């Protein structure tokens, strides 16, 4: 696209003026809060909202980094995000492959597959909480119908199952996004490749691994990174369904930080953990920018 240069006399001041809301917005609503948060993480501030006494201290970082709860939260976050990504990508590929073929009623199937994505997070949390109900829930009822199942878990209140249960909900909610991106990716793979490979006598499995997977590599990378980043920040499901429990089994960093600040009123260490999360997000985001920008310049 050809750039516009200064043509009209308004062009001398208008562009700058039009950028002002964005720049002010980012400065005041994003950069300032982040900087402020970093500053607070270096104080002994107790009550969030009450400011802090001056003086720098790395105490918060020391205590946060030595606190097993922090590492538990990091571990939960990683399992939660990793589980979400694996589940979403596998389901996403399966669904995308199915939807890539033409068949009667494809439009409808597509809508039904994407539906979970359209539901508000709070609604999803509540509906699944109801379905997971250990005594009256439809999930356990369904399990009992299976011949080999004897007893059913108390999903959300059992430390062994709680994280899995929430991962399942998150997969259910996010995999449609993977489907749409992967579907778009599949459509960019040229039919000629499949044709050539079919002529060479390759079977469907071979074709999948020799052509489809390499063709989707870029899109897959993007899907994985975005899902990771979003899962890192996911708050609603855990907060509403388990409150980080039972016994910390689902206490992901975001939730941990929230409780640290609002239940235990340790603002300093909450912000210190926030900085940890920030570091992890920056790493992931940088990778994401590299991958997705690289694609643009191909």
């Amino acid at each position, binding site marked *: 696209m050809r750039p516009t*240069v*200064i*043509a*009209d*006399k*308004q062009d001398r001041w208008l562009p700058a003026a039009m950028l002002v809301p964005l720049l002010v917005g980012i400065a005041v609503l994003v950069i300032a809060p982040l900087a402020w948060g970093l500053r607070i993480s270096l104080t002994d501030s107790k009550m969030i909202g009450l400011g802090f006494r001056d003086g720098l201290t790395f105490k918060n970082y020391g205590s946060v980094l030595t606190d097993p709860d922090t590492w538990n939260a990091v571990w939960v976050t990683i399992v939660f995000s990793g589980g979400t990504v694996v589940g979403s990508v596998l389901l996403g590929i399966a669904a995308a492959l199915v939807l890539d073929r033409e068949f009667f009623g494809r439009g409808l199937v597509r809508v039904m597959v994407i539906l979970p994505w359209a539901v508000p997070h709070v609604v999803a949390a509540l509906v699944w909480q109801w379905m997971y109900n250990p005594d009256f829930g439809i999930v356990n009822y369904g399990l009992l119908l299976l011949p080999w199942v004897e007893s059913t878990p108390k999903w959300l209140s059992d430390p062994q199952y709680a994280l899995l249960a929430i991962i399942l909900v998150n997969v259910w909610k996010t995999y449609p996004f993977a489907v749409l991106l992967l579907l778009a990716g599949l459509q960019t793979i040229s039919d000629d490749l499949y044709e050539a490979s079919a002529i060479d006598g390759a079977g469907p499995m071979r074709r999948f691994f020799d052509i489809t997977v390499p063709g989707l590599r870029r899109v897959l990378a993007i899907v994985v990174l975005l899902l990771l980043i979003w899962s890192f920040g996911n708050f609603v499901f855990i907060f509403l369904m388990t409150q980080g429990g039972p016994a910390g089994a689902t206490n992901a960093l975001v939730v941990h930080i929230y409780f640290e600040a609002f239940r235990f009123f340790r603002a300093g260490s909450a912000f210190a953990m926030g900085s940890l999360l920030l570091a992890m997000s920056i790493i992931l985001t940088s990778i994401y920018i590299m991958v997705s920008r690289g694609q643009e310049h191909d």
Partner: protein
Amino acid sequence: MATARLENVSKRYPDHLAVDRVSLDIEESEFLVLVGPSGCGKSTTLRMIAGLENATEGDIWIDDRRVNNASPRDRDVAMVFQNYALYPHMNVYRNLSYSLRLRRAPKAEIEKLVQQVAESLDLTRLLHRKPGQLSGGQRQRVALGRAIIREPKLFLMDEPLSNLDAKLRVQTRSEITRLQRELGVTTIYVTHDQSEAMTMGSRIVVMKDGRIQQIDTPRALYRDPANAFVAQFIGTPPMNLLACRLDDAGDEAALSGDGVGIKCPADAIDLLRSAADSLLVGFRPEDIAISGDGPDAGFGGSVVSIEELGHESLATVAAGESQFIARLAPSVADRVRLGDRIGFSVDPAKLRFFDKRTGEAISIA
């Protein structure tokens, strides 16, 4: 109706000098054509006149006002774009009346002018269509209409015909020329097609690599190209240029080279001496006559291809390193076979000479 003047105008992009010290005087009611190969800076020049691009150096004047820093809307020019740039969300009526509405012209006057323009361009029945529902030729006419409805000081047209098919292009050419004559608006027209330039322009500016090569009337450009580039750019087929040397022997000097062996015109000898051993002799394919192998045959070679055009034939003749094209009447062409060795003569007055090293014409006045 206005005049315009460019004085040493340059446009420098970070990595590229697109227009290099261009100076131009455009007279009132003139139809000036900018022509040159792709990328030579024609559009950039035009866009600087329109105000869409800022000149890096130099001055641009419209009438007696320096407009370098004026907004396009304050220059009172109208422009027709290559892809027409019709506003897709407005119908033809609103496209035509856009500039009038911006100037808050009275409704009745807008109505009158639109009808008038629509009539002169045969758009009356299309006024309520959107651009998407028009053919290429119709869009083109709307674009023209949008320019003429305002009676601007200058018309600027950037390859307005290049999206039309060949037949429509010729038709629209004369349409544009007619309109320009009727309205008498000073016009600057950009094209990369030299035949379009020749048929339309009252004067032609030939550009190359951001520089003006020559400014002249079509006829002068054709007859007396200022350099080898213009000689080869103007005319289809272009002027033949053959390398030769001046064999200086006092008054009896001769020019010789592959396929060339002529007596040097007496009045030219002194001028040609300056570049004696690297000359180009040029002549138009139609200025050539078959002369057998007679003594006055100055040019010769064997026929390597014949292109039959019906009303005439173009014979390509090769001799050593050189090649030239001869335009032959059908009766003459019938007697020519591939591989024949043929000699030609050219009226000495029609010969043109160029310095091979600089490409500049050596004019023999």
